[in-house]
């Protein structure tokens, strides 16, 4: 990594629910941001710049929400910018904020991402207001069928991921879905939402927000001296490609391969499976866990589902994936990517509570969006350099 080192010294998130009718949109963001500031030991005036991320404006019907939300985020008289890269936006927002630190443009940056799905209807928004919307799952389902065929994975792999992430969510006080009696049978017998995806293999619709406070090397060392262990950003990467073109492989998009290799190279990682202690991957539909394990060359082709089947992606396994419960348990769309990034930071700070992975020192935060065409990733570590 070049430039000023970047430390994450504050993480905050809301309690995610299908309907947070108790808070305004501004109140939802402030709930996450206030927690991040408190965690960082800072107050609103200490922040130099704000970066805001959210999915399409049609989801809440607030055009250019960064204007309405600027003063709610203490940004009066400060720089604020909005990021938008579909479902990966929460990750991209964290990366843009990190770049402001790397570039020495600002010393303390607040990054906030959100979605309040209950204000509108994401399926309506994705369908452009027309009838017959496919939903995100309708777009991904054929690609999942293709993955299953080419990898030879047995059908229970998807059910197994769905169960693992919901069990992890029981250890996360902020998670939306709390299905105490989740089981493979229950997933298998849930109705077919987007063939071959069952209802319980799909993410919920959530209201929620996430925030992180990023600072420079001096700020990170100061936090450490105050007993607040920072997460150091070792590498960031973003890539994109068109939604469709002849010859595209949407199961293993080239942008995802390139993004991952760029990330590993920047972080000095040659064997991601061995060198990364825990990963928060953007898995809105169960099959995307093995698909991204393979699609980002964490495992070889056809080996991702075997890692899942062996239980190695559970907390306590050799490569835990989504100890927080992941997108399958909480999906405030615009915030979902930042939640992955923030949970990775919590892990290397040793602050993940009941879903802490023992000895996590290197963590991967990952997000993807659109038609599996936008990718954002970062590697965070418990130590600098």
């Amino acid at each position, binding site marked *: 990594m070049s430039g000023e080192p970047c430390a994450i010294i504050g993480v905050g998130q809301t309690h995610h629910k299908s309907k947070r*009718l108790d808070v305004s949109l501004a109140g939802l963001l402030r709930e996450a941001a206030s927690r991040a500031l408190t965690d960082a030991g800072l107050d609103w005036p200490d922040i130099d710049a704000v970066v805001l991320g959210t999915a399409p404006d049609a989801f809440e019907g607030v055009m250019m929400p960064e204007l309405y939300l600027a003063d709610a985020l203490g940004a009066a*008289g400060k720089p604020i910018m909005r990021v938008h890269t579909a479902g990966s936006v929460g990750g991209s927002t964290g990366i843009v904020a990190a770049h402001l630190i790397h570039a020495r443009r600002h010393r303390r940056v607040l990054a906030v991402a959100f979605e309040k799905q209950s204000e509108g209807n994401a399926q*309506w928004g994705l369908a452009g207001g027309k009838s017959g*919307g496919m939903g995100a799952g309708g777009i991904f389902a*054929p690609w999942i069928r293709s993955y299953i*065929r080419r990898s030879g994975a047995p059908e229970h792999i998807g059910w197994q991921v769905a169960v693992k992430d919901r069990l992890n969510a029981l250890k996360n006080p902020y998670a939306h879905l709390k299905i105490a009696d989740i089981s493979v049978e229950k997933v298998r017998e849930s109705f077919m939402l987007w063939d071959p995806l069952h209802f319980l293999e799909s993410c919920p619709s959530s209201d929620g927000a996430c925030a992180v406070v990023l600072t420079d090397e001096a700020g990170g060392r100061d936090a450490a001296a105050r007993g607040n262990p920072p997460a150091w950003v070792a590498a960031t990467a973003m890539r994109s490609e068109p939604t469709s073109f002849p010859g595209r492989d949407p199961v293993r998009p080239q942008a995802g391969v390139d993004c991952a290799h760029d990330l590993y190279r920047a972080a000095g990682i040659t064997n991601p499976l061995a060198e990364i202690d825990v990963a928060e991957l953007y898995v809105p539909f169960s099959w995307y866990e093995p698909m991204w394990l393979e699609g980002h060359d964490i495992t070889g082709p056809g080996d991702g589902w075997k890692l899942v089947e062996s239980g190695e992606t559970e907390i306590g396994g050799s490569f835990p994936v989504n100890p927080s419960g992941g997108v399958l348990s909480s999906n405030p769309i615009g915030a979902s990517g930042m939640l992955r990034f923030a949970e990775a930071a919590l892990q290397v700070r040793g602050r993940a509570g009941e879903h802490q992975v023992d000895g996590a020192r290197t963590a991967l935060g990952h997000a993807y969006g659109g038609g599996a065409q936008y990718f954002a990733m970062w590697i965070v570590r418990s130590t600098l350099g």
Partner: protein
Amino acid sequence: MPVSAETKYGPSVTTNTVEFPYRRSLGPVVGGFVAALARGQITGVRSTGVRGGGRVLCPPLEYDPDTGAATDGELVDVGPEGTVRSWTWVAAPDARHPLDRPFAFALIQLDGADTAMVHAVDAGGEDALRAGLRVTARFRAQPKGRTDDLAYFVPEGTETTDPDVVDAAAAAAGAAAAGVSTEPVQTMEFWSSLTYKEAVSPATARYARSMLAGTLLGQKCPTCAKVFVPPRDFCSIDGIRLDEGHDLALPDRGVITNFTIVTPVPYPGQKETEPFVRVSVLLDDVEALMGLQPVVDIPNEEVRVGMRVEAVWLPESERNAEEFGNRGWGSTTGAISGWRATGEPDLPVERYIDRVF
């Protein structure tokens, strides 16, 4: 609902309207403010911020807009009289304005508040407006628990002839008689409607014309030899411009390479109620893939990879170009009703299943 311009010679401009009843969560502060409006009472909130400490914000916020610090959340009564600080005259109101007659949008500082709020002033004429003008609030005679229960302001001393509004005292008396709730209003529906016009690109216009005439149209890049459906006038692989000379008439038969069965979710404008199939079709002879296509006369459970299909064209008189917008990559709606099985033997699954849109 898109409404197209011409269809006979192909569309040139399409008009789209999208509408949705968004539901706003108001939160504790604005929710309390809205609840009080039904009683003819305007409220503010006291800031506790360092710089703005102690001042009363109206309309009330959960935070001080200068500092981001939380306000104390306690609503305090202000108004209903106030002073115009600045204004702009709206000479020709449209249907979305708060008044159907010429009016002013003004910054009004209510008595007891330290900040001004934007609201409408029904002043009769522009000449009546000036900075410093004293105004008083008018409320909906039949409150609905919405922000617009505060209808507009009038210059102090104005007789009101509008039967739909009352002054603060009458609103308070009416609310007391009707037993209006004092609990904060939790949510408020906000009807959003957006109409936009879009010039149809030449490539889309050629596709629409061809579809109306009963021929699928694609475009072949001379560099990579890939076929795009519909024409885009560029190759996204090589980054080069293509034109009409690269258009290619395509066969309307092919093979299903992949599919999904969607369980429809209800939302405003959703007409689908039963699970429906969408397939990817790889056309014969050319390497051209069409995504998200409907099927005709094939039960959901019989749809499979490798199935041979052909397009079912609508009768020429029933075809329309309403759905052919610039972003509808491969929509056939309005020309083709779907794809039906030809009855030929299936093709091998493994040759086609990765050809997904």
